[in-house]
């Protein structure tokens, strides 16, 4: 079955370790992710200013590309792109006045009214494939791998676009269970990673990351599973510095959910591009006999 797919710019450069294992895994699960043609940046951050319509143009153009293809669903892999695209879509569905302005501004495009459904790949796994089927397809159960699900913000907030319960999400826990791993719940699971504050306050965000990572560690996690390249950057980039600054700080490997999926489905570990990860995810995997 083919599924219209929006990658996002970061997945083509820094986060190929999020994209490539995702595409390869879905293929094994019977879904062909077909990149939509002529896609643009998703807009990166959903603009909260009510009258700032120009920043809605980029995400909506991408949704128009899906409609042009005669498709009614768009799968995303990057949590940030998911957020921006789904919120822009909602705006087009619900606000007639802004919809008209935007359609009239993009007069070279077909009219758009939010006809496409934006989903995240985790939703495809949960709702279209199902955890039981996924569990049956697992060839290499990630036994004894203690992983804390880290949701961050963009899959869950605001409530209107959430893929799961805003307060108490379980989708990543269920995902990890299907792969045979041991999920570790921790209170910072849905805390913000600091997002784009990294640009203006990098030191504060490093300390912020330390709180999140220390909390996961103290609850028994050996690694974190992520869905978003910005969370990966904020939680991963400062770890080396944190080790120097704080004696007690222990490096924590970060995985994208697609890497764990590919690994569990028995795909060649090359597709996971572990070389792009922060920290040493491979040594942890070798320790657990999950990687040769």
């Amino acid at each position: 079955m083919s599924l219209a797919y929006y990658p996002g710019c970061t997945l083509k450069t820094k986060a190929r370790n999020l994209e490539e294992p995702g595409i390869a895994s879905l293929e094994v699960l019977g879904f062909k992710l077909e990149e939509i043609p002529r896609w643009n940046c998703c807009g990166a951050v959903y603009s909260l200013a009510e009258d700032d319509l120009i920043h809605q143009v980029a995400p909506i153009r991408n949704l128009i590309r899906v409609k042009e293809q005669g498709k009614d669903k768009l799968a995303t892999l990057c949590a940030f792109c998911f957020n921006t695209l789904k919120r822009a879509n909602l705006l087009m569905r619900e606000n007639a006045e802004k919809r008209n302005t935007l359609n009239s501004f993009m007069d070279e495009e077909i009219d758009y009214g939010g006809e496409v459904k934006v989903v995240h790949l985790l939703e495809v796994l949960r709702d279209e494939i199902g955890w039981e089927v996924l569990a049956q397809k697992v060839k290499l159960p990630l036994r004894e791998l203690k992983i804390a699900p880290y949701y961050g913000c963009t899959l869950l907030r605001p409530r209107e676009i959430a893929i799961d319960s805003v307060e108490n999400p379980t989708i990543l826990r269920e995902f990890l269970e299907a792969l045979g791993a041991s999920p570790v719940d921790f209170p910072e699971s849905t805390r913000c990673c600091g997002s784009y504050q990294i640009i203006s306050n990098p030191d504060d965000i490093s300390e912020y990351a330390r709180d999140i990572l220390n909390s996961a560690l103290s609850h028994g996690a050996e690694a974190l599973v992520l869905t978003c390249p910005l969370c990966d950057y904020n939680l991963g980039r400062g770890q080396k510095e944190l080790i120097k600054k704080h004696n007690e700080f222990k490096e924590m490997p970060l995985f994208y959910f697609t890497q764990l999926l590919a690994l569990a489905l028995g795909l060649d570990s090359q597709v996971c591009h572990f070389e792009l990860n922060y920290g040493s995810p491979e040594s942890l995997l070798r320790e657990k006999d999950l990687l040769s």
Partner: protein
Amino acid sequence: MSVKEENKNPAETAVKEKKQVAAKLIPVYIMGKRYEVPEGLTIMKAMEYAGYKFVRGCGCRGGTCGACGTVYRKPGDYKLQVALACQKTVEPDMYMAQIPFFPVNRAQYEFADLTSAPEEVFKLYPELFRCVACNACTKACPQGVEVMDAIAALKQGNIAEAARLSFDCIQCGLCASRCFGELAQYHMIQLARRIYGAKILPRAEHLAEMVGTINEGRYDQILEELKHVKEDELKKLYQEREAEPMVAGEDWKPKDTRYL
């Protein structure tokens, strides 16, 4: 036509030609002023007919140099249209203005030091990420380049795709003149084409081999001999040379294979 007549100014000559062919006059507006010009002229020739003299901003007059970018509108149509003045023929009631140059940011770089990594482009042109996909650049391209898509490809780090999409760019700069994010698209995609051509496309091995053969002196003697041949003899050699037939198979070879 006498020499004296040829030296007349172009507008007067055009008037004379107009009388000869009795071309219909149509109204156009050049920078807001109405002129009657013969239909069928290009915008550039029509402006010269109206008395303008191009000292710069006319370039090649052949549609390839990008010096004569023109914007125009027709009454009752909100759409801004674009053209190359040397290519587009005038239409009645065009309101037009020339944009031969538009000031933009052009990054300075030592090309030999660049790699093919997308980050090189990001560093030289960080404003790339100010693009909001408004598509004004594509609409402003007289060459029909999908400029916005090429910029999107650059943001995705796909230099090859940016180069492919922008192949027809002639650097007229109209895209930049319309850009909401103040990007100099045409310089960015030119950089993409340069990187693609020099650092991504595979090198032509047969070319390097041939250059090597030349440097080894294989053709030195024959060239030296040709230098001393008399003109008549040279003409004879040229006329009597063995040329490849119009239809020849892949395996065709001349009788003299010494220099193959």
